[in-house]
């Protein structure tokens, strides 16, 4: 089946494209992107409503889908539904399930579930170490063979420098990155909030930015030593960004990601509008103004490679407890596009093309996956954005099984309109005028 998307703005930075183009899709492939492509026999013409923007499918390279083991929070099916509703055509899911994804059996199970759901592509990330315990390397070759796109012990750092060194060396033969959750466990200790005025005032145990910065500096150094590829997960502190820039300047294979909540909120959200809101508790914690400003600068100047959500669903009961007892994390798949458009693009801090690099081109490149491009012959994973759509975030309306978001009630400008995976429309935003034409 051929479909011709006519009349939209196409932003495809991987191919230097930004302008009004038509997109011809045949089955699960992109045939060509050109001006004034003719409709023909057997071609369904979709007229793209004015104001919508066609971009390569967005990829969230850091999510927690909780299956197997914690299906009360999320399943691969509900997580995939949340992903496509957020405009993502693919997600990479962390291995901290129960049991941990440290073997081909679990990886295969995840891929089966994802295929059954038939929504977003799901790229499992395997564990670096067996059980993510940090003691012995997992069977990384087997994980790679089974379909893992990276390895990570996310939730925990790879605490031992020696183990991290070995992981970076070993993964070189599979050309896959090691994604590290950077935090010095002794400095983080039992902290629950960014160490600063807010934590002091609220009496919350602090986690200094240095807890992250020290581990990022170590990983950057080890990337230099080993030639391995290290990707810094959910970077939150300004000193971490300095270390990443330094590593890049040295030519080391270092990349990093920032989560929307870390470029949107500061630790002041712990005090207002809701004091001790457990939906503002995440790890790494919301940091202070200077950190947020540095991260935004990094997002704009290219030293930050990726926006990833760290989508971390938790059941309402688990969050309705004392702040220090609540689990870390918030859902993020369905708030990422509105926050990125509203907070970064519409404020003139980054261009739409840069947004596409952060959410599509670079994640595809780092994970060595198809996508991130609308070139002829590429897989037809396409997101259509409605940058001027006014949205009000409603936690209760999220497709994710969990509703733990601090953005409930936020009014933002910008939304995903359509999500197309392998040429198939898997999500249509009913609120966007004309979006039904893609169905």
């Amino acid at each position: 089946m051929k479909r011709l998307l006519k009349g939209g703005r196409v932003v495809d930075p991987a191919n230097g494209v930004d302008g009004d183009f038509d997109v011809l899709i045949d089955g699960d492939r992109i045939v060509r992107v050109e001006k004034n492509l003719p409709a023909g026999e057997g071609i369904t013409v979709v007229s793209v409503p004015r104001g919508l923007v066609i971009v390569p499918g967005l990829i969230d390279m850091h999510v927690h889908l909780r299956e197997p083991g914690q299906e009360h929070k999320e399943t691969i099916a509900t997580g995939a539904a949340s992903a496509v509703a957020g405009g993502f055509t693919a997600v990479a899911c962390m291995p901290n399930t129960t049991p941990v994804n440290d073997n081909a059996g679990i990886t295969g199970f995840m891929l089966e579930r994802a295929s059954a759901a038939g929504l977003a592509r799901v790229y499992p990330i395997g564990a670096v170490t067996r059980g993510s315990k940090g003691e012995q390397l997992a069977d990384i070759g087997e994980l790679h063979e089974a379909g893992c796109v990276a390895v990570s012990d996310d939730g925990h750092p790879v605490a031992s420098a020696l183990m991290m060194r070995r992981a970076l060396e070993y993964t070189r033969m599979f050309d896959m990155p090691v994604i590290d959750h950077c935090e010095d466990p002794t400095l983080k200790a039992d902290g629950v909030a960014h160490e600063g005025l807010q934590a002091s005032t609220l009496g919350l145990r602090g986690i200094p930015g240095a807890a992250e910065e020290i581990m990022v500096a170590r990983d950057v150094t080890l990337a230099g030593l080993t030639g391995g590829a290290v990707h810094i997960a959910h970077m939150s502190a300004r000193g971490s960004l300095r270390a990443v820039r330094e590593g890049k300047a040295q030519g080391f294979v270092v990349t990093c990601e920032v989560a929307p909540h870390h470029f949107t909120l500061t630790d002041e959200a712990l005090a207002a509008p809701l004091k001790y809101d457990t939906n503002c508790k995440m790890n790494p914690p919301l940091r202070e103004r200077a950190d947020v400003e540095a991260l935004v600068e990094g997002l704009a100047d290219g030293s930050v490679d990726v926006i990833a959500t760290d989508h971390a669903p938790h059941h309402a009961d688990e969050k309705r407890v004392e702040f220090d007892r609540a689990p870390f994390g918030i859902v993020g798949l369905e708030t990422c596009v509105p926050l990125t458009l509203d907070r970064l693009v519409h404020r003139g801090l980054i261009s739409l093309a840069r947004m596409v690099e952060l959410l599509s081109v670079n994640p595809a490149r780092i994970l060595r996956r198809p996508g991130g491009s609308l070139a002829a012959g590429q897989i037809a994973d396409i997101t259509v954005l409605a940058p001027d759509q006014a949205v009000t975030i409603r936690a209760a309306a999220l497709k994710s099984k969990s509703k733990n978001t601090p953005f409930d009630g936020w009014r933002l400008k910008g939304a995903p309109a359509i999500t197309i995976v392998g040429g198939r429309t898997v999500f249509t935003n009913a609120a966007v005028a004309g979006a039904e034409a893609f169905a």
Partner: protein
Amino acid sequence: MTKSSSRTTTSAEADRPRDPQPAASTVPATHLRHRHLLGIADLTPEEILLILDTADAMKEIAARPIKKVPTLRGRTIVNLFFEPSTRTRTSFEVAEKRLSADTLNVAIATSSVVKGETLVDTALNLEAMAPDMIVLRHSSSGACDLLARICRSRIINAGDGMHEHPTQALLDAFTIRHHKGQLAGLKVAIVGDLLHSRVVRSNLLLLTKLGAEVWLCGPPTMIPPGMEQLGAHVTSRVEEAVEGADAVMLLRIQLERMQGGFFPSLREYFQVFGMTEARMRLAKPDAIVMHPGPMNRGVEIASEVADGPYSVILEQVANGVAVRMAVLYLLAGGIEDEAAA
């Protein structure tokens, strides 16, 4: 959370005459704006003065042969304590009984709750029995804020984690005011473990609101960041903190902090920070010494100082009852207003 910042004048004012106070710059408060007492952070200076003035009246009750008034007859107050406490719990209980409230003490070891009922469920179960107020002590900062969001009862914070202990700060201020006449312009030194102390946070907020100069002193390992932004002077030289002070408040040093590397030994702590008679001589001649208890004699305070003529430590305990009676009374007044509305 709460935006009800406007202080409205109600007819209830006329029903509660109060002693004229010397030249307060603003209109004296006649009631508390909030339903709960979660922290000093929520109180205006006028509300703090209202509580202290009311406590003056309550203190008089303790001097009577029959120490009981019918003010809270028919009111049910639950003392919900998730942390061991002798002083604060008994003080609240005495205050409640002197006001004729029906009191219920629920003490729950935090450890047994970990695997069982959540705080929210425990509170909702107690709520089902329709108490008017819940006095909550909990090891988690913000536990009182959490209950205030879900409970109909009025919540009184009897100490939440490292956050606030408002009635302690109020009784401290009451004690200082009793000796010094007022708080504005006084130098108050607070020495000890500032990091883990809810007492210091409430005291810093209260004392700065009433115009006192607050000096915080402790090892740099136990000073939380941002205290200067809250208006404190911060030093690790105890002599500097104590010099010329009108009041010196010591905080308990918990023995387990040594394992955390906060300081090397109790011996060294006493050498560097312990309040000795020699150090007290740096303070004003009429300075008072305070401690929220329980004391570690020979660690943060020398016995001679604890028992010395300037010590008001036991007065603090006595004043605690009056201050808590005042808080209970003022919050109960709000219950009447709500019922009438």
